[in-house]
């Protein structure tokens, strides 16, 4: 059934977009974390999307991996900071807050659109079930 497949497709998109929201929430939360679990400054995480065939036809989305951003770290002058080097510079995470906010808007809009797609498919399915009544 093609219309039922829409649920699989939009559902995979919802999962992927929420993974993206998770990653950028952790980026925003750690925008000022001088040291991560490994002692190094936190690096911004980015999710990678790829199209994935779903059962019964159609293409859904899959998160193929979470990669560390290769952007250069932010260098801040703060000699009082315990993480500062001899010259008084602190290596801050390479999180770009503006970029993350834009990313968040994009992810939330994409999520909303896919919910809308699911709702439409549900309405169509219900009308199909009521056929001939």
């Amino acid at each position: 059934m093609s219309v039922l497949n829409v649920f699989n497709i939009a559902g995979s998109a919802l999962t992927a977009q929420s993974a993206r929201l998770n990653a950028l929430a952790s980026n925003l939360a750690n925008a000022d974390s001088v040291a991560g679990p490994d002692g190094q400054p936190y690096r911004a995480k980015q999710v990678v999307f790829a199209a994935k065939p779903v059962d019964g036809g159609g293409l859904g989305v899959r998160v193929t991996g979470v990669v560390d951003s290769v952007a250069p770290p932010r260098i801040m002058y703060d000699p009082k900071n315990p993480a500062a080097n001899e010259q008084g510079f602190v290596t801050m995470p390479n999180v770009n807050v503006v970029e993350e906010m834009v990313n968040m808007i994009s992810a939330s809009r994409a999520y909303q659109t896919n919910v809308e797609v699911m709702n439409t498919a549900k309405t169509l399915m219900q009308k199909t079930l009521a056929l001939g009544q």
Partner: protein
Amino acid sequence: MIDRIDQTLGFHQRALSLRAYRQEVIASNIANADTPHYKARDIDFKASLQGAMGGRGGPLDLVRTAPRHLPAGGNAPAGARLLYRTETQSSVDGNTVDMDVERAAFAENAVQYEASLTFINGLLRSLQSAMQSQ
């Protein structure tokens, strides 16, 4: 008589399955709006329905001899021929999904699907009233 009912219902049935298939294809486009290198697809509804009425089958399916093989051709209904959408604004990541176009197509297709359902409902209702005794 029965074959005439079948003929009329058959047309709507094919149209409905093509509409449902198109809905699925556009849902795939919307789901992959942020996937790099994804190419938006759609079907030419008129040509597909003409093909379906002319007895043309769906795209050829490849035989899957191992469970890990990807389905090719898939479950496309009779007559459906998947095409690639001409992009209006190209993006750097190779994605050709234009959200406005897709959303408009999705809404339009949903209405057309409902129209098909209304036609079938009307057909069934007139059949029922024709069969009533008084």
